């Protein structure tokens, strides 16, 4: 599965980092990073992050 964050609407709340820390993280500058291709074992976490995102900025496909 592919993970994408629409950075035009992401407000860096970090709810994705809380929900799925293996997929999403902040670096020391506070920029958001994520694993772009995940395996089946991580899909549930990615969906939890996508649900939790207040701006609904996470696209899974």
């Amino acid at each position, binding site marked *: 599965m592919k993970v994408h964050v629409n950075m035009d609407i992401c407000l860096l709340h970090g709810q994705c980092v*809380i*929900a799925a820390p293996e997929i999403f993280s902040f670096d020391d500058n506070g920029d958001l990073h994520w694993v772009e291709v995940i395996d089946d074992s991580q899909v549930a976490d990615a969906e939890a992050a996508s*649900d939790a995102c207040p701006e609904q900025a996470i696209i899974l496909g």
Partner: protein
Amino acid sequence: MTQDSIVADNLPYLDISDPGFSIRSSEVMRARELCWCARTNYGLAVLRYDDVQKLLRHPKLRQGSYRWPTLNDVTGEFARWWESMLLSQEGDNHSRLRRMANPAFSPKLITTLAPKFTELATMLIDEFAPKGECDFIAEFTEPYATGVICELLGLPFERWRELADIAADMGLALGVTFKKDLPTIEAATRRLFDYVEELVEARRAAPKDDFIGMLIKANEDKSQLSDQELLDMIVLAIFGGIDTTRNQLGLAMATFIEHSEQWALLAEQPELGRAAVEEVMRVRPTVTWVTREAVEDFTYNDTPIEKGTTLHLFSQSATSDPRVFDDASFDITAERKPHFGFGGGAHHCLGHFIARGDMTEALKLLAQRLKNPRFNGEVEWLPDSGNTGAIRMPIAFDPA
């Protein structure tokens, strides 16, 4: 309530504990032009959009409200709950609790509730609409906000009064008379916990995939969500969901009464309901500020901020900042940058899908049924700071 000022004396000063202080005053606007922040009698106030945006999620800051009981020299059952619940937690503990609660607040679950919101709003409007007048708070926003929580908890609507009364007594804890009201607050806290415990027992006996059912599922692994944490979370949803929604819908009505052409537009184009909620929360957020506290010394915008300093992030002032909103007048069709009415960062409101959903349904219906609304007597307001709103709002309208 004083805190030694650690910043240069040339910053503007705001007396935020003066009962006459208004977050929308020209004094605040003047301060916002002079500097990004002001000194207050309790730490700093942050005034501009970009700075509120950054500081809401600044790694050197934590949520500031956890100290509220200590500040008021209060201990007991309310204080225990307040200090252990989600909003007061940070770091790993906060993340764990938030992960456990997320499924119960997910947009999927909320979507299934939307028809119930419509039903509830219709029922309440049907009651008072034929009269052509009402107290908008007592007859609509309060039963509606509480009814939504009843719906979420799987309680019949008839229980709303009971829940509203307990929440109101517990809410005294947020006022200046916290300590004096402590016996009432403690009694209400115990009643609410008893009530919630009963609810959980009933759901355990008759499992269901609803809000409480989802939290009970998380509670199966007690190391992730203990029995006490399960109860604390449900109490927080009740405590944090009622007054906020009641106040925000009252502020919405007041704003639309002052902009009648926008109300007419919403009635014609109900699909603007969602945008109307966002625009109301930009110009009149009920939570006019959230607090953060410095966990270590740091420098921001060349201003040294000492460990322990409280920062009041003025959402109200930030989202009327002319640097970002060149025409800041109320317009539900305008494309806007996001408001901070639900806070931001790790503590971003967990109930926002619910609140956005129920307020959208309510405003759409109200605009269609209540034409030409106007004030019909004295409106009674909470102070125009902290968590604000109306407690009585007589209105008249032409029923449609």
